[in-house]
């Protein structure tokens, strides 16, 4: 057995490496479980988001698809479904209503499920297949508008159908609110019988594909190259901005958690290795005396740590795997989604992370070991290790930083966390040093010191150990910052996030209100108990020129950009900036200006800048105005948003219809049926199903993130522990010496308690400030949320610091006092 392995066994038995190994195992376990779980959750999220799309990929065309396209889906081993959409009048017993007809093949949808009920407002359940031939499913509004309950008959074109169910949820619903008439779903094979699809009909043909991500991507590339005019590909990227926003935010949260776990692991390992090195200085000096060269020592300890690192990392990976499996199983109900099986990548990643952490943070102090002069065996004071300087850890920090950015998969998030971490370490150490010295030298301290020797010794110790204590306080503050960040700040962030998709968000969109109906509709809504229903004007216009240059679809590379310029814009006018919009650049126009305000994202997609002149045609007329401001808006707010808003003076003369978004509480639905009867020209869109889906995604993410936080929290506690034991040896030795010279137990514990209390207070306050600042930065810069200051944090932070170190003082005093001073001293020689 090689010597390094034997040394590992001996050091392990002696307990020297247990804390270090525990740090590494917990670190790797937390990183791996985070990675495993994040990997699975984000894959599940993407898959669930596909459910909103109904497939992994959707091809849409305004004419029938060529057979070769559909055949290619099958040929590539992908699942394939088809649908035909058109608008047609349906006739029931109570009357006629324009319906958005969707005729689907049996296996629609490929992702997600349709949900149906036996009657309006009855409990619903997932449907096994689409509507059978000869039957239709109607959404609630259509049932009431047509007076066609389940079991009744209705006519569509030349064919007659049986109403078989009430359709309560359709994956694609809500994707295009403005184009959806109440839904009628039927079997694709019944379409010819209706005789509704003829030359000149406005019909949309959908092809759905789903399967292995790689195969889907390959097919997408293949299909895109063959797209003709009027054909397009929808995928998650181009399809649902609000879902994309939720997923991106979820990934940020998960990334952040993984980052914290990794950072904390690094700190814990650095602290534990430092302790190991301090305890091995003498051994190394002896080994130098016994003939070991520097290279030999470095090789031996390097190999010892490498074996330890590999073993602990492997163990951590295994633990991480089981932990995520067990927790995913336990949280299965909460997650509301079956997770895909874990992939191997996170295990490799975790293993690598473990080794990088160990080498980055253990190697620098280990190198000190080889430099121990052999003469230390005769003169003990020789070659005392220099305190860990930041420069020493530069390599480790560099490696960790690279790792973190990689883990986060997001450069900005990574840099924020690393930058914040670096600044926090420097500031913490500097402030702790200053504060401890100031406390011990203050007039109050002198007066207190005059009263009790314990106090005097404690305060003197603070000053004497200012440097070492500052390092310890900084480490403690760091661990505590993480813990606070993961408890208080996390809750605040999660709350703020939940609020961003509020439960009282609008669940109905009302479209097509004519100007002369406004007053009446408003009265009606107020009468139905729906108070806050703003009616916003909407004018449809086509973009024809930018800065005087005619717009052509071919000028734009991006699919989304092409689609945006191709179709009509919904323009709106208003004097005031809508409440849920924010100005990101420029300023809101004054009411008489020839300016417009554009949504930031579309401006970026289409390459518009402040000051650009846009020309639109509305009907036969055209108008131009310059971009005066860019707006940031929340797509997941479920409010009505417009890409382009202009001053009323510019558009008031054009024909406009009005739209509204409002919330209907359960039980108020009856009033809506009345609305549909009184204003047959209006379209009322129920977005609650889509909203429910979006909120499910958010809730699912919150659950996942909370679970992942537990691990980072564990790593934070480990840092706290390592920081606490870092100076234990020295304190025990000092206490033993004091007792040898006649100090009473009370004196020893008293002076330690004073020192610890002061350190705890400083660490607690520092950690509180750290958590608050980092929380604000994250909220504003990364998550784009407003985070109100938390009173709980400011109370709990300092208190936690004081309590933690008081507990530590008590435990450490017990240890010191239970051992005889002679034994402690002999042990420490």
């Amino acid at each position, binding site marked *: 057995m090689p*010597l390094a392995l*034997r040394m590992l066994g*001996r*050091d392990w*038995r*002696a307990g*020297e490496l247990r804390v270090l190994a525990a740090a590494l195992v917990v670190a790797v376990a937390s990183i791996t479980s985070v990675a495993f779980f994040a990997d699975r959750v984000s894959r599940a999220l993407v898959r669930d988001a596909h459910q909103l799309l109904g497939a992994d990929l959707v091809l849409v065309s305004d004419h029938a698809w060529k057979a070769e396209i559909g055949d290619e889906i099958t040929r590539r081993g992908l699942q394939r479904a088809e649908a035909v959409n058109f608008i047609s009048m349906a006739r029931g017993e109570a009357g006629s209503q324009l319906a958005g007809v969707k005729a689907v093949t049996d296996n629609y949808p490929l992702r997600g499920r349709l949900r149906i009920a036996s009657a309006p407002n009855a409990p619903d359940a997932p449907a096994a297949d689409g509507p059978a031939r000869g039957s239709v499913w109607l959404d609630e509004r259509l049932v009431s508008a047509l007076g066609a309950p389940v079991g009744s008959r209705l006519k569509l074109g030349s064919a007659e159908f049986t109403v078989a169910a009430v359709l309560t949820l359709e994956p694609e619903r809500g994707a295009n609110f403005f184009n959806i008439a109440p839904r009628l779903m039927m079997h694709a094979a019944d379409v010819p019988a209706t005789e509704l699809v003829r030359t000149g009909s406005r019909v949309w043909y959908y092809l759905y594909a789903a399967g292995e991500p790689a195969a889907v991507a390959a097919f997408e590339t293949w299909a895109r190259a063959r797209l003709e005019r009027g054909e397009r590909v929808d995928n998650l990227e181009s399809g649902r901005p609000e879902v994309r926003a939720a997923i991106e935010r979820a990934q940020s949260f998960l990334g952040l958690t993984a980052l914290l776990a990794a950072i904390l692991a690094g700190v814990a390992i650095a602290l534990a290795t430092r302790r190991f090195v301090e305890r091995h200085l*003498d*051994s190394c*000096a*002896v*080994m*130098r*005396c*016994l*003939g*070991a*060269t*520097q*290279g*030999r020592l470095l090789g031996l300890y390097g190999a010892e740590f490498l074996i330890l690192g590999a073993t602990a990392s492997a163990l951590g990976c295994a633990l991480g795997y089981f932990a995520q499996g067990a927790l995913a199983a336990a949280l299965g109900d909460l997650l509301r989604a079956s997770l895909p099986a874990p992939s191997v990548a996170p295990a490799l990643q975790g293993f690598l992370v473990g080794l990088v952490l160990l080498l980055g943070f253990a190697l620098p102090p280990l190198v000190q070991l080889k430099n121990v*002069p*052999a*003469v230390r*065996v*005769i*003169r*003990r004071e020789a070659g005392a290790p220099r305190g860990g300087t930041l420069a020493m850890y530069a390599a480790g920090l560099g490696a960790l930083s690279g790792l973190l950015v990689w883990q986060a998969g997001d450069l900005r998030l990574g840099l924020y966390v690393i930058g914040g971490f670096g600044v926090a370490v420097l500031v913490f150490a500097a402030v702790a040093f200053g504060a401890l010295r100031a406390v011990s030298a203050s007039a109050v301290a002198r007066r207190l010191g005059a009263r009790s020797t314990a106090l005097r010794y404690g305060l003197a110790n603070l000053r004497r150990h200012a440097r070492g204590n500052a390092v310890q306080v900084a480490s403690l503050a760091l661990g505590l910052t993480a813990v606070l960040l993961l408890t208080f700040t996390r809750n605040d962030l999660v709350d703020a996030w939940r609020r961003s998709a509020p439960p009282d968000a609008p669940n109905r969109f009302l479209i097509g209100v004519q100007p002369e109906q406004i007053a009446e509709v408003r009265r009606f809504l107020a009468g139905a108990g729906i108070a806050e229903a703003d009616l916003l004007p909407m004018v449809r216009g086509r973009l024809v020129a930018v800065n005087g240059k005619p717009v052509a679809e071919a000028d734009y590379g991006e699919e989304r950009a092409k689609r945006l310029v191709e179709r009509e814009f919904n323009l709106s006018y208003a004097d005031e900036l809508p409440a849920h919009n924010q100005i990101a650049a420029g300023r809101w126009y004054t009411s008489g200006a020839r300016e417009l305000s554009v949504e930031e994202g579309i401006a970026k997609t289409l390459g518009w800048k402040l000051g650009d002149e846009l020309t639109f045609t509305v009907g036969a007329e055209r108008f131009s105005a310059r971009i005066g401001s860019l707006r940031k808006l929340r797509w997941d707010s479920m409010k009505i948003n417009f890409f382009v808003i202009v001053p009323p003076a510019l558009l008031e003369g054009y024909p406009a219809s009005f739209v509204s978004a409002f919330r209907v509480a359960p039980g108020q639905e009856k009033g809506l049926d009345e609305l549909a009867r009184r204003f047959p020209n209006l379209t009322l869109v129920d977005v609650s199903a889509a909203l429910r889906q979006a909120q499910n995604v958010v809730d699912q993410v919150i659950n996942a993130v909370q679970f992942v936080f537990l691990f980072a929290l564990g790593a934070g506690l480990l840092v706290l522990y390592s920081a606490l034991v870092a100076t234990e040896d020295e304190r025990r030795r000092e206490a033993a010496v004091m007792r040898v010279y006649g100090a009473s137990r009370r004196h020893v514990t008293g002076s330690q308690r004073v020192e610890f209390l002061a350190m705890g207070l400083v660490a607690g306050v520092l950690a509180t400030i750290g958590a608050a600042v980092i929380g604000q930065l994250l909220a504003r810069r990364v998550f784009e949320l407003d985070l109100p200051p938390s009173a709980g944090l400011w109370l709990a932070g300092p208190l936690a610091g004081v309590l933690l170190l008081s507990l530590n003082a008590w435990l450490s005093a017990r240890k010191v006092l239970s051992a005889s001073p002679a*034994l402690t001293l*002999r*042990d420490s*020689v």
Partner: protein
Amino acid sequence: MKSGEADLVILREIDLDVTPGEVVAVVGASGSGKSTLLAILAGLDTPTAGSVQLAGADLFALDEDARAELRGRAVGFVFQSFQLLPSLNALENVMLPLELAGREDAEDAAREILARVGLAERLHHYPKHLSGGEQQRVALARAFVVRPQVLLADEPTGSLDAESGDAVIELLFQLNRESGTTLVMVTHDERLAQRCTRIVRLAAGRIVA
């Protein structure tokens, strides 16, 4: 051998020749430079000027790593504070120099010499569970197990009570006789010094007798 002039001069004009098999005591008051002389003889410390010939090698013409190898090969140590590795048991402490030298028979050799110093029953005890005298006997075993040409001892009884000190010294001389090792022992114990074949007295960094 000479060592000399620095800002703080610890040793000066030292000229000392020790022949193989000699047993030399270095005595002197605290601060007379005894321990520094020993450190220099072992190549643990470097003098500002002068040279040391050890086992045929010019010690300070070698670099630190080469000196370490020479120590491993030819020199044994016994210290006042024993310098046993706290994480290793008695057997492992004795095995350590052999293991560092890559010897396959480390365990057998260590067991044998530990039995020789009377600790056959204590092989698996850790230093903190051994008495001072026992710890120093382990240290003696560790020093002699490599069969060094030169043994350097720094106040080997300094941390022991009289009785265990005497026992350790008896053992030290006995082992020394059996192996014919050259012994240089720093001590302030006159009684102990008298048992050596030669006494070197230091005062204020110079040899006075």
